[in-house]
């Protein structure tokens, strides 16, 4: 019989800022039993991470936490918010462990991974010498690191993202904690790796009788991983229910919106006779590796001879995991990278055009990037950002005409044109992505390269951006090349899909056919990982 492990009772976290008090968490109560997985779901800013970090008192110094967090141990109940600093340090990593989203930065890059795991053991256990060394190897084996004996002397940079997350899990489990707090542990990983990590957590949970507090924004994971779900919004718990029940009968409106925000629908097909707009043959991109004197240059080929064709009005979706070369392919098509092979746009051969000759064509092919924070210069106003293309391609416009065009473009992406004077940092992620779309649209392009335009956004925001992209495509007869690792989004938006791996095409075909009956094993694996419920 499972027993009560952790109780959060009316937790309230305030940030007293000079501009006024911000309450990040408002009277949140939840409980967790041994061996249970509770998912804490919410969009960015919902307070889910703050709630989790206050359990171990890892909040920023500024924050003020009130309420009670009761930690049930065989020796009695402890109020974690009130125990001494020394006591909480003994609990951290020992009784309650935590893993984070970013496996790249959570490990010290200058220390061998074996050493980093040992540090945890030295701190919290009496193991030493041989015993500790054996335990490290045992842990690495448990989290599925091959050749643990040899690997323990590796540095973090020698491991892949998934392996790093495994090492983090090994560190977290080193002292056999009762509770594991996992803060978006798979968000930065590819879908197939994500599936493996989730499987690993499940296995370890059974082995150790671990309770897991799983923080995520991804309902797909929740459905298959959690026993109970707790939905948060703007610092408050909206709904708590067993997983199956929550998905079948969501009670709160917000939960319903979240569930419905999963991308759905499909793209109406275009006329088969529509003219070809983009036609690439045997496209190759290679990067020079480190040059050595008196030796032939070594190259890494990121795109290895790809053919693709897109008809006017069509959307081609490119899916693949990180490192598959999908973004490189997109940039090569726009001639932002040097490439070999042929690229035709409409009836112009692009391959041999230099920068100057390319410029008039640039206004017809535009791009929207993934990172809404990195793709807008922080020192330019929205008006300057959106009008930049006009200055290049329509120098004949005067100031008033330019403002008119910018206003038009901002209205088109449903932003208030009065926002022209503001700077990007004043906008949310979704709004910034709209600004980036407006920057592309202001030139009235025919072809848009969308490089993971929705990946950095919350689900509900993502849904609105997808709707916007659909509307714009219909209104302006736009042709899209949609690059994503998110199969659900690609399925909802594209006519045809191209699956990439290691710079090569694995499979290519109509969206419907490809998703219904994938031919290649890799495609099937990708889909199984992405839609966890798909039959094997």
């Amino acid at each position, binding site marked *: 019989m499972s027993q009560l492990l952790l109780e959060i009772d009316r937790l309230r976290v305030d940030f007293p800022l000079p501009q006024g008090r911000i309450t990040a968490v408002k009277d949140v109560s939840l409980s967790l039993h041994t061996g249970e997985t509770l998912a804490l779901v919410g969009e960015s800013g919902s307070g889910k991470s703050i709630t989790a970090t206050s359990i171990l008192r890892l909040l920023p110094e500024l924050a003020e936490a009130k309420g009670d967090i009761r930690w049930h141990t065989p020796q009695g109940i402890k109020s974690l918010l009130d125990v001494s600093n020394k006591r909480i340090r003994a609990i951290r990593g020992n009784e309650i462990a935590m893993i984070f989203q970013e496996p790249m930065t959570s490990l010290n890059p200058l220390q061998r991974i074996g050493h980093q795991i040992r540090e945890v053991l030295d701190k919290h256990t009496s193991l030493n010498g041989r015993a500790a060394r054996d335990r490290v190897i045992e842990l690495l084996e448990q989290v599925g690191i091959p050749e643990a004996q040899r690997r323990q002397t590796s540095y973090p940079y020698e491991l892949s993202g998934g392996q790093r997350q495994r090492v983090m899990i090994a560190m977290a489990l080193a002292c056999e904690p009762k509770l594991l707090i996992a803060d978006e542990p798979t968000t930065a990983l590819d879908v197939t790796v994500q599936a493996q990590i989730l499987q690993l957590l499940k296995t370890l949970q059974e082995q150790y009788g671990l309770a897991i507090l799983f923080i995520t924004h991804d309902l797909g994971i929740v459905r298959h991983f959690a026993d109970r779900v707790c939905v948060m919004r703007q610092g408050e718990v909206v709904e708590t229910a067993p997983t199956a029940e929550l998905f079948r009968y969501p009670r709160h409106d917000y939960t319903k919106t979240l569930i419905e925000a999963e991308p759905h629908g499909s793209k109406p097909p275009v006329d088969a006779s529509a003219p070809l707009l983009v036609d690439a043959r045997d496209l190759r991109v290679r990067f020079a590796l480190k040059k050595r004197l008196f030796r032939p240059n070594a190259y890494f080929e990121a795109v290895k001879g790809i053919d693709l064709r897109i008809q006017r009005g069509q959307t081609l979706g490119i899916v693949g995991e990180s490192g598959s070369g999908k973004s490189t392919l997109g940039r090569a098509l726009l001639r*932002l990278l040097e490439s070999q092979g042929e690229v035709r746009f409409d009836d112009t051969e692009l391959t041999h055009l230099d920068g100057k000759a390319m410029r008039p064509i640039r206004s017809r092919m535009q791009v929207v990037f993934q990172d809404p924070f990195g793709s807008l210069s*922080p020192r330019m106003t929205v008006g300057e950002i959106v009008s930049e293309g006009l200055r290049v391609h329509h120098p004949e416009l005067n100031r008033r005409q330019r403002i008119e065009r910018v206003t038009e473009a901002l209205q088109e992406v449903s932003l208030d044109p009065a926002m022209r004077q503001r700077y990007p940092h004043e906008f949310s992620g979704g709004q910034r992505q709209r600004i980036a779309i407006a920057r592309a649209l202001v030139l009235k392009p025919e072809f848009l390269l969308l490089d993971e335009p929705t990946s950095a956004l919350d689900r509900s925001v993502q849904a609105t951006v997808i709707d916007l992209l659909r509307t714009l495509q219909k209104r302006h007869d736009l042709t899209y090349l949609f690059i994503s690792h998110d199969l659900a989004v690609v399925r909802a938006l594209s006519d045809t899909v191209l699956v990439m791996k290691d710079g090569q095409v694995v499979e290519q075909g109509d969206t419907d056919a490809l998703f219904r009956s994938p031919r290649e094993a890799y495609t099937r694996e990708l889909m199984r990982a992405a839609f966890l419920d798909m039959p094997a």
Partner: protein
Amino acid sequence: MHTASEAHTVGESLGREAWRRLKQNRAAMTSLVILIILTVACIAGPWLTPWGLSEVDWNAFTAPPSLAEGHYAGTDANGRDLLTRSLYGGQISLSVAVVATLVSLVIGVLYGAIAGFMGGRVDNLMMRFVDIMYSLPFMFLVILMMVLFGRHILLIYAAIGAVEWLDMSRIVRGQTLALKRREFVEAARALGVTNRTIIVRHLIPNTLGPVIVYVTLTVPKVILLESFLSFLGLGVQEPMTSWGVLISEGTDMMETAPWMLIVPSAFLALTLFCLNFLGDGLRDALDPRTR
């Protein structure tokens, strides 16, 4: 013609915005006012005090400050009025600071941004040139220039400017390398923006934070470098003087005539203090993210 006027309006709007924010920063504004007063005083120095630069008061050698005698800050060992000399010295020190810093700012920022943005072989060549310049001993360079061009105050500007931009170019290049991989630069390339415009509008404005901090560090360095040159007899010559020279003279007389050290040091310290506050304020004002 058209594009030039465009760039102007953009610069103006950014400048006006920054000025508005700077005005709200009380420490920076106070520093700015003090610096302006100081500059005006140094320029108007000759008319402000009853004594001339090298005018000797035969009744007062090494005299402490006295209102009655008209030596508000005392005199030096040769009976010359210290306040007058400090104001004259300020002309040299401040102008060296401004000119050398401006030179290093303009050359360093452009050079670094171009090297960083172009990358590859161009970057390699440009930065190896910087390395060579670094490896030349500074004194050797100054003496060489003196032999070639003769002794002149302009030479100090040129010599200091010629070394100070090296650090700046390295800092800016490093910043640019990180910035040019950001997606907004790629987006600009996709829009067909020319390389020149990318460097001027997208890269350089985003390096401003570290650049301004570095400038506030350069100014004191330049003033001290000038005094070092003068101390070796390679800089300004008697009867002209500078804060650095006055301070080094004052150090010798520290025990018998402390005012000879305190007065020029106070001028220098006040200037550097104000510059630091102003630099901080400028950095914040030019960054739209700080409100």
